[in-house]
């Protein structure tokens, strides 16, 4: 089933760089969709359109539509706050908020109006477990989150997103600063997450793309070059450019 439908999306930043050119694609529910390609291809820009985080950057022109459950979220009338609760995001650099581990998880729930302690405790445990970090931090939930290692911080950030029970989770190179073991843990968590959520991942390497993708989209200089099932695309790409990139001939 298609969760997200992107129609003819184009976007130009105010410094003149054209970031997306007429991108159209459909994103499946309960699957990991991978957006990959060389830097500057528009992958992050596309992610940031999906939760309207680009609103806060200076944009010259954009056109096209993004439908989530049939609603165009680029409509100016969209409730952006509600949208961002529905579409969670994890960034390349872990950004624990300047609070304790527990508060990092409960902060967004608190903002959303959930005050009951039992509910909050439940959410903390559930989301930390899903993000595969519960066992490492359950003894010290009141410690500052910044004291954790990078890999742990990133999983707390993932848990923070899960706690809001979004429908879609966006991940922008979530493992770029992590060691292989932490990376493995995050990837394992993703496989668990896709059972309940729609996951869209910008991987930090082609290998990671191949490991995790149910569907994969190859972006080059703002254009969607090829989009299809992960298995087919990585073993038997249709486009010459995709093949070259996967084989490591450029990029």
């Amino acid at each position, binding site marked *: 089933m298609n969760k997200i439908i992107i129609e003819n999306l184009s976007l130009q930043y105010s410094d003149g760089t054209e970031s997306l050119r007429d991108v159209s694609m459909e994103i499946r529910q309960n699957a990991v969709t991978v957006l990959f390609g060389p830097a500057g291809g528009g992958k992050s820009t596309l992610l940031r359109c999906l939760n309207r985080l680009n609103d806060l950057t200076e944009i010259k022109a954009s056109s096209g539509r993004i439908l989530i459950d049939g609603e165009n979220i680029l409509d100016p009338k969209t409730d952006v706050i*509600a949208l*961002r609760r529905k579409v969670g995001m994890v960034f390349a650099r872990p950004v624990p*908020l*300047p609070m304790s581990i527990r508060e990092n998880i409960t902060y967004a729930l608190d903002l959303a109006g959930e005050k009951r302690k039992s509910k909050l405790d439940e959410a903390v445990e559930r989301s930390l477990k899903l993000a595969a970090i519960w066992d490492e931090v359950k003894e010290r939930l009141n410690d500052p989150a*910044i004291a954790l290692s990078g890999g742990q911080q990133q999983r707390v950030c993932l848990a923070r997103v899960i706690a809001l029970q979004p429908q879609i989770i966006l991940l922008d190179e979530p493992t770029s600063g992590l060691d292989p073991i932490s990376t493995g843990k995050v990837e394992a968590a993703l496989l668990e997450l896709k059972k309940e959520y729609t996951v869209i991942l910008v991987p930090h390497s082609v290998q990671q793309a191949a490991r995790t993708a149910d569907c994969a989209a190859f972006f080059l200089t703002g254009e969607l070059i090829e989009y299809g099932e992960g298995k087919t695309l990585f073993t038997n790409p249709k486009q010459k450019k995709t093949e070259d990139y996967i084989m490591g001939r450029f990029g």
Partner: protein
Amino acid sequence: MEKSLSWREFIITRLIQTSGYSAILFVALIFFFLLREGLPTLTEVDMSSLLNIRWYPIEDYFGILPLITGSLVVTLGAALIAVPFGIGTAVYISEIAPRWMREILKPLVELLGGLPSVVLGFLGILVLAPFLRVFLNLPTGLTALTGSLLLGGIAVPTVVSVAEDALDSVPRAYREGAWALGATKWQTIWRVTLPAARSGVLTAVMLGIGRAIGETMTVMMVTGNAPVLAIKLGSLFSPVRTMTATIAAEMGEVANGSTHYHVLFFIGMVLFIISLVVNIIASSVVFRAKKRAERILS
């Protein structure tokens, strides 16, 4: 070649070292001088008359309480104005204002900070004091409130400029992290950006208060200079005299080595100790906050 290079290193290191030590030396010398001129007070005037409420040095009344309370009232009033206003302005400039507005406001605030305090005192006497007298129906416009308002104005640019730098150095990723969780702009500022910058913001507040408590010229011009104990609520609307204004006004006409002369230095010591205490409290708060949470931040 090798040798001359190491000699150069040696000389440069020593030069830097000397300038570092000399800073300490000068502070120590100033402190020593203050002590030497101020401490004789304790033998010449007994404690009970020093802690009296009457300051009338010509007839040997050296009660410094009115001066201390005068300084505290004016400074407290200034802080109450400068802190919320300064932090609010800093937040506006760093978080809310569009870029072109920021580029106008920031230099403007810094220009304001460079305004000589005499000029502000002038404005105080000519504009603010008459206005307050009429508006609040007071016998005179030269009151503690007038001083507080002007001192607040003097401290605001300091607070704004330091706090804005602190806010500006909070990584953009923090804000995006909070936004992506569905926090509004205001919630992000209040719960994420300000806490992340809090040691810098606290430094800004302390520098602002320090600026206010040490300010002399403006308060001397606009507070009326009546050495009256300022502990009633109404004191805000009556003339007061601060420690700094007393020293500045009387030092010129006092006999060198007299009791009055020593008492003025004693007041200088008290002032020195007060600002020392403010600084120690500030740095210990910052230090504790750092130890508790943001060791990596700020």
